[in-house]
């Protein structure tokens, strides 16, 4: 009617130079053609321009061989296969294309089985719909382009996040098997919680006795690089080739020069709450974090240091005989390439509320530690040794049997080391099977095991003691203890949630990481390939379990990430036509993987194929058409839509 057609999708006719197109119907044995009237659809005159054929079972060995021969004999470069779901056999037929010397990307499957035949209904509408779908396949295949295979060598190196028991276990297992490991630890020291506990269950092994040699090996291993005071800021890429950006806060003390004499702490005038004690006590702004820490090097807390807050003070500088203090140290940022990431960020002990004299079980354990903040002495609210101690956990606990095991362990340690202290244990004993023998042994040691529950009201000060409300059956009582140690539910470690966000790992209701692998035979695997989770980052668990997790993660890495292998890059990685790009950045915002970056000189977009997963979200965002999704180009999809909706030769309405 008019001179210029209305603005529709630019659908160019197939280029005759691109070769002939085949259309192969598969009958899938008896599966296809009962509802769809394939006899009519298969008539060659129905599909001018296509070479039509039918096979009984195209995916069979005979069918595949026939297809390869058919393509060669008839000189077909492109083929539409009307059969089952591409999720079933796309790979099969792509391989046949390759065997026949064709590009696998010039094959298009039309899903007649799962999505037409098997959904039932009347033959006519099913046949009409099948016809539209085949027509769309033919329309689309004309625009399909070969995609070159690109690959990149995998990095066999591993980033381990978290230097506690699980992380150390993973790092050592990997490094001993010739892997380079970068161990990223948020704290200025390694060892995590395990290195601050005293004796661990089930057999009251001395934690530092097995942690210290392991930490020592980690710190001196030629293939392990330890980054303390460090955290992961950004993760890009995927299994085999991650790029992990790590920010490291300055320690302000040169580890090579510091010998750990702690003279700086002795002279430092600033006291701050002890971050390692679980509550009570103070430490200085500079000094060794805690006795026995590794690396055994002082660290300066920038937030509380007078000098760094602008107040003149140089006490530590003058006190250090080794000139180890570097107040001008700067934070650093570096990118580590690794093939796998092990997340072993651990947990933070639960914090408790109450008047002085109420501490967490973790704080009690630190007190009991011979080189802990009190040198092994117990301190009640007034700082003197308590005559009575309550160990309790609330009924609403979620840490499984761990709290009860911890209470019984602490009761035993206190009775053994401080026989003068009357020990009472309350809470949840009945919930833990198999503890009867231990409980009897404790009763023999003189521990009072009270079949009672702690009431939710917080304890109150009662003179120098602490008043606690207990429920024994229907009876409510108030008892007073000099020292009350409560187990509160553990929480994920600081920064674990942010890291989960960077890695796109799902969290459970409490904020711990979910393993979420498809099979129990892939322990520690997560839903993100190449990312493993070990230890209490996945929820509270015993230290020995955390160590096993670390070893399991290392095993999974060693089994799946092989040095020298090449990783085929995502074939669908998006291309950007730089000449068309206006540098608006919509694609950068749209990319879920941080795979689009600006060219520093022009500001225009550049897709890094090693990071691209081929979702095409950027191509849909791009308003200039510069970004193009391979195998799902605008022309291909537009042709498909038009064909689906056009009236066909069969006269579909």
């Amino acid at each position, binding site marked *: 009617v008019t*001179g210029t057609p209305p*603005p529709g999708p630019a659908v160019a006719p197939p280029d005759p130079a691109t070769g002939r197109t085949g259309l192969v119907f598969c009958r899938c044995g008896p599966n296809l053609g009962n509802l769809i009237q394939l006899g009519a659809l298969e008539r060659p005159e129905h599909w001018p321009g296509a070479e039509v054929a039918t096979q009984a079972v195209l995916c069979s060995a005979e069918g595949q061989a026939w297809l390869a021969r058919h393509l060669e004999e008839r000189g077909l470069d492109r083929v539409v296969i009307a059969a089952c779901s591409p999720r*079933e056999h796309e790979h099969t037929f792509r391989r046949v294309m390759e065997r026949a010397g064709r590009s696998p990307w010039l094959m298009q499957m039309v899903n007649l089985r799962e*999505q037409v035949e098997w959904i039932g209904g009347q033959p*006519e509408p099913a046949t009409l719909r099948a016809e539209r779908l085949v027509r769309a396949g033919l329309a689309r295949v004309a625009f399909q382009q070969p995609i070159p295979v690109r690959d990149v060598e995998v990095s066999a190196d591993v980033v381990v996040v978290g230097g506690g028991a699980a992380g150390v276990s993973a790092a050592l297992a990997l490094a001993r098997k010739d892997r380079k490991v970068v161990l990223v630890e948020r704290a200025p020291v390694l060892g995590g919680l395990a290195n601050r506990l005293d004796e661990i269950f089930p057999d009251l092994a001395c934690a530092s006795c097995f942690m210290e040699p392991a930490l020592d090996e980690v710190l001196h291993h030629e293939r392990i690089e330890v980054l303390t005071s460090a955290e992961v800021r950004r993760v890009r890429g995927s299994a085999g080739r991650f790029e992990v950006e790590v920010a490291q806060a300055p320690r302000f003390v040169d580890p090579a020069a510091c010998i750990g004499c702690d003279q700086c702490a002795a002279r430092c005038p600033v006291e701050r709450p002890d971050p390692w004690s679980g509550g009570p006590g103070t430490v200085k702004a500079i000094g060794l974090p805690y006795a026995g820490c590794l690396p055994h090097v002082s660290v300066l807390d920038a937030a509380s240091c007078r000098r760094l807050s602008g107040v003149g003070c140089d006490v530590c500088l003058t006190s250090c005989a080794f000139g180890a203090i570097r107040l001008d140290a700067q934070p650093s940022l570096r990118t580590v390439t690794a093939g796998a990431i092990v997340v072993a960020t651990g947990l933070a002990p639960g914090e408790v509320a109450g008047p002085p004299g109420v501490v967490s079980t973790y704080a009690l354990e630190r007190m009991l530690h011979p080189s802990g903040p009190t040198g092994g002495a117990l301190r009640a609210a007034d700082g003197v040794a308590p005559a009575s101690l309550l160990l309790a956990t609330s009924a609403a606990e979620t840490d499984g049997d761990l709290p009860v095991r911890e209470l019984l362990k602490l009761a035993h340690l206190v009775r053994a080391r401080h026989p003068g202290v009357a020990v009472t244990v309350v809470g949840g004993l009945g919930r833990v099977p198999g503890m009867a023998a231990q409980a009897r042994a404790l009763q023999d040691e003189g521990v009072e095991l009270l079949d009672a529950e702690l009431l939710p009201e917080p304890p109150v000060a009662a003179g120098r003691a602490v008043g606690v409300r207990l429920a024994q059956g229907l009876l409510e009582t108030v008892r007073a203890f000099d020292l009350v140690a409560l187990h509160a539910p553990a929480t994920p470690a600081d920064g674990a949630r942010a890291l989960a966000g960077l890695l796109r790992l799902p969290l459970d209701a409490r904020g711990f990481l979910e393993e979420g692998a498809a099979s129990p035979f892939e322990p520690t695997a997560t839903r993100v390939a190449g990312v493993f989770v070990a230890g209490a980052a996945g929820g509270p668990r015993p230290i020995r379990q955390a160590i096993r997790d670390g070893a399991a993660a290392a095993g999974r890495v060693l089994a799946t990430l092989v040095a020298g292998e090449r990783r085929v890059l995502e074939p669908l990685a998006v291309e950007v036509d730089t000449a068309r790009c206006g540098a*608006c950045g919509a694609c950068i915002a749209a990319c*879920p993987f941080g795979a689009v970056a600006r060219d520093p000189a022009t500001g225009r977009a550049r897709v890094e194929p090693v990071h691209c997963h081929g979702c095409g979200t950027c191509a849909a965002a791009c308003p200039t*058409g510069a970004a193009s999704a391979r195998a799902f180009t605008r022309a291909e999809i537009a042709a498909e839509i038009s064909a689906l909706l056009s009236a066909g030769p069969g006269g579909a309405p």
Partner: protein
Amino acid sequence: VSAEPRIVAFLCNWCAYGAADQAGRAHLEYPQSLLTVRVPCTGRVEPAFVLQAFREGADGVLIAGCHPGDCHYLDGNLRAHARHALLVRVLEQAGIEPARFRIEWAGASEAERFAGIVREMTAEVAALGRLDYAQRSLHSAYDALVTTPHRLDGLEEARRSPRAPGKPRVAFYWNASCGGCEEAVVDLGEGFADLAERVDIVLWPVALDFKRADVEALPDGGIDVAFVNGAVRLSEQDDWAVLLRRKARTVVAFGACAHLGGVVGLGNLSEPAELLETAYRAQPTVSNPEQHLPGTRVLAAGHELTLPTLLSRALPLGEVVPVDYVIPGCPPSPAVISAAVELLLSEERLAQSGSASPGPGSVLAPNVSLCDSCPRKDSRPERLSVTALARLATTQPDETTCFLAQGLVCLGPGTRQGCQPGCVEVNMPCRGCFGPLDGIPDGGAAALSAFASILEGGEAGLTALAAALPDPVGTFWRYGYGAGLIPRRIRKDSTT
């Protein structure tokens, strides 16, 4: 034969497509209504695909993918959600019911859920009836044009006829537009004086007293270049477009209205009768005691008059007659006009040797988006992210920072440059008057998609952001609605 509605379904490969397969394996019966397009991720679905589907006959469009949090590509489905939330409002403005355009989540194992979605949507769309957008809303515009079925015959001969010697003969004509394009010619200043010296102006109603008869008297091909501004909104404008096409060897669509329908194209959101009622009767300043409307015969001072009738929608010039070149902009900038005039009046181009670049059909402005030449481009953050929308009415935009980074809608990302850049210089975001780049089927859809892609938030947050944006059609299609894939509100009075 088929009673089922036609629902174009974009199914993500990992979840919804898998669910559809599962439904088949479980032999769950559901209507044969889906015309499936398999996409890697719902995030791949361009709004233009959805509009194309409706334009070409879909009764409904379904986008189905992974549940939020389960996306194989982390959050591509949330981008799809944001685009859907804006686009469903655009369709509503065009009279296309929200039930016809749904986004749903179904995991690969949720066969029953998937089949349920299809059953429910098919029933809802069937209850609404056939949409038949093109038949009901597009073809009607041509009905008026088709009254002279052979009106374009012989055009090619006129275009190929040898050029008469002498100064180039130039015509300017004004269709449905505000007159700003005429101003833009005068705004050439000294350049205009030079131009007037170089050419013979054979038609310029706004400035010179030529009559239609003078143009009709010219031989076919007797005008070298006709610059025609304005959309084609009236039957009379169609007549003129055809006449000028016949007489001119080169027709240039001048300005946004001739190029894309312009602001005039937003009139397509109303019925012609509504426009006439407003303009000729409802306005308090109108005196029309006889309640006459254009198209009816009126006796005035002894003469019988008939005012031209409104076409059923405003059309870009290129939809009415073949157009050789486009000078974009509202109005075109002096730089773009000068460059175009130099090109069009060159000896080579006047002789239409055909080998010169750019080729016929070209838009005579750079094929690069405005962002690339934006004076604020260094202020763009590495990653744009909009968590709250700002509005010009209530915000004083910072004068140096990227508008998008301030939460303001700016169409610079998808708009061709060449405006020098007018609006940005006076602290106004780009509103898209230069139109999209070559090959973009619908500039508004592209702009909407880009903007939706920088919105940040969860499912509910994105819905709220999309809902907070006033008038999506007027925002993203301010100058391009008449040339869009859905260029008109669906006709209320039509059925199929």
